[in-house]
């Protein structure tokens, strides 16, 4: 959490430091829009912040970040060097030290009808990344293939902001360290894990080295497009398990097939509300009907209490459900 303060302009980090104590650990998003009220999201609910850092419902009393705040923020995010982040700006978000993802909106510059660049950026959405060691502890035994000594092909489905990335980060850590409480009580061997971290969110690498604990036997391809990255992993790093965030493009399916042929297990995530939701999505539908994934985990809303994991088998039958309470709730 504190790492996010390093990229905030002095005035805004001062406000956030005055936030009521119980809100800070649950801070999910900070939204900064030039000339408009400063907004934060805590446990799925939004609040404005007034000039004393106190949450308020009234937009009139809220602190409004000015042009200077936004320029300093942009300079901090880019380290005074927009030219080092051209690709990221094209995609509309950058990942900063600590794994926090910052979404951006401003004026787009087009070239032949495609976004070439983003300038005059006036909206920032800072999503706070959190490392929750043990986030997958209860779930892991359900996904484990005791016979093969590895994880089953798993797809994790949830709407944004429900902890998909936190979950697969911990899955990577658990597999890589062999930290799995198997149902039969046997030890689980540490596996070679390959993470294709297109958005630098899973491992939050700085200069190639993960800042989050993703396990001792884990290799990370940082900032690499998923499909290409999966192929590179298969060819170069011989992983036992490949972990990849937010699949959904046709070339991703191709790479997943390739990994299957190489005997590599896949753990992936996808945006969605339910099992039926993803069974209806173009590329995912194919993967579902081919029964590629042996387990689906759907993460459900439970604001403040914890999370609901619903586990489905390859045919889409629900085989288990569990509530995992938040550590601090």
């Amino acid at each position, binding site marked *: 959490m504190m790492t996010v303060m390093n990229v905030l302009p002095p005035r805004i980090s001062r406000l956030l430091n005055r936030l009521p104590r119980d809100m800070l650990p649950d801070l999910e998003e900070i939204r900064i829009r030039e000339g408009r009220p400063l907004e934060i999201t805590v446990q799925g609910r939004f609040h404005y912040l007034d000039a004393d850092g106190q949450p308020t419902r009234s937009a009139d009393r809220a602190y409004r970040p000015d042009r200077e705040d936004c*320029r*300093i923020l942009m300079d901090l995010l880019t*380290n*005074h*060097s927009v030219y*080092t982040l051209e690709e990221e700006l094209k995609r509309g978000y950058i990942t900063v030290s600590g794994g926090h993802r910052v979404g951006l909106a401003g004026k787009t510059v087009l070239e032949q009808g495609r976004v070439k660049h983003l300038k005059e950026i006036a909206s920032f959405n800072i999503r706070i990344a959190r490392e929750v060691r043990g986030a997958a502890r209860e779930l892991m035994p359900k996904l484990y293939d005791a016979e093969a000594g590895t994880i089953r092909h798993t797809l994790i489905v949830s709407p944004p902001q429900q902890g998909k990335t936190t979950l697969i980060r911990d899955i990577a850590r658990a597999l890589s360290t062999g930290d799995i409480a198997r149902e039969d009580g046997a030890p689980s061997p540490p596996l070679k894990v390959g993470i294709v971290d297109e958005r630098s969110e899973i491992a939050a690498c700085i200069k190639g080295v993960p800042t989050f604990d993703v396990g001792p036997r884990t290799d990370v391809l940082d900032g690499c497009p998923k499909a290409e990255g999966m192929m590179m992993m298969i060819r170069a790093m011989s992983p036992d398990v490949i972990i990849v965030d937010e699949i959904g493009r046709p070339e991703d399916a191709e790479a997943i097939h390739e990994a299957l042929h190489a005997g590599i297990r896949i753990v992936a995530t996808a945006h969605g509300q339910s099992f039926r939701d993803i069974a209806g999505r173009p590329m995912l539908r194919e993967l579902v009907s081919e029964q590629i994934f042996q387990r689906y985990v759907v993460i459900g809303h439970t604001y403040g209490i914890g999370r609901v994991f619903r586990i489905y088998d390859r045919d889409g039958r629900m085989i288990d459900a569990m509530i995992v309470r938040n550590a601090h709730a």
Partner: protein
Amino acid sequence: MLDLIGALCVLFAGTALGFSISARYADRPKQLRLMLHALQRLETEIAYGRTPLPEALARIAEQMGEPLAALFRNAAAQMDGTRPTDEAWRNAVQACWKQTAMKAPEQDVLIRLGQSLGGSDSEDQIKHLRLAMRMLKMEEENAAEDQRKYAKMWKSLGVLCGALVVILVF
């Protein structure tokens, strides 16, 4: 005897003044050329190295002599997250300007460059840097011209003024 010493002192002072003014004329084109080299390096760092600006400025400072090294070092140090890039750069330019032999026109060019430094894609950065370099080049030509015209003149003028005072007084 005392007269002679006094006369020599006056003559020496005049000469020294002339030489120091003349040296400023010689330093300006030299420093402008160094500044051009520095911006050239900055362009390389940005366009090919994709080096973050503070790091690029610090690297350039390491490879330059004073007083220009101080300017780049100061600029890199000012980019500490409490002020926008252009302000950091402007502060550094203004703080170090007195120690250089450069004049107002090139200061304007540099401050204007600061307004776009780091704030856009590399293509755009190159354009701004090239523009600044073109304008500095012009100033450098002016400065060299001035040096030709005035450097020698000030040297002899210093000696001659000293001599004149000596003649008038004694």
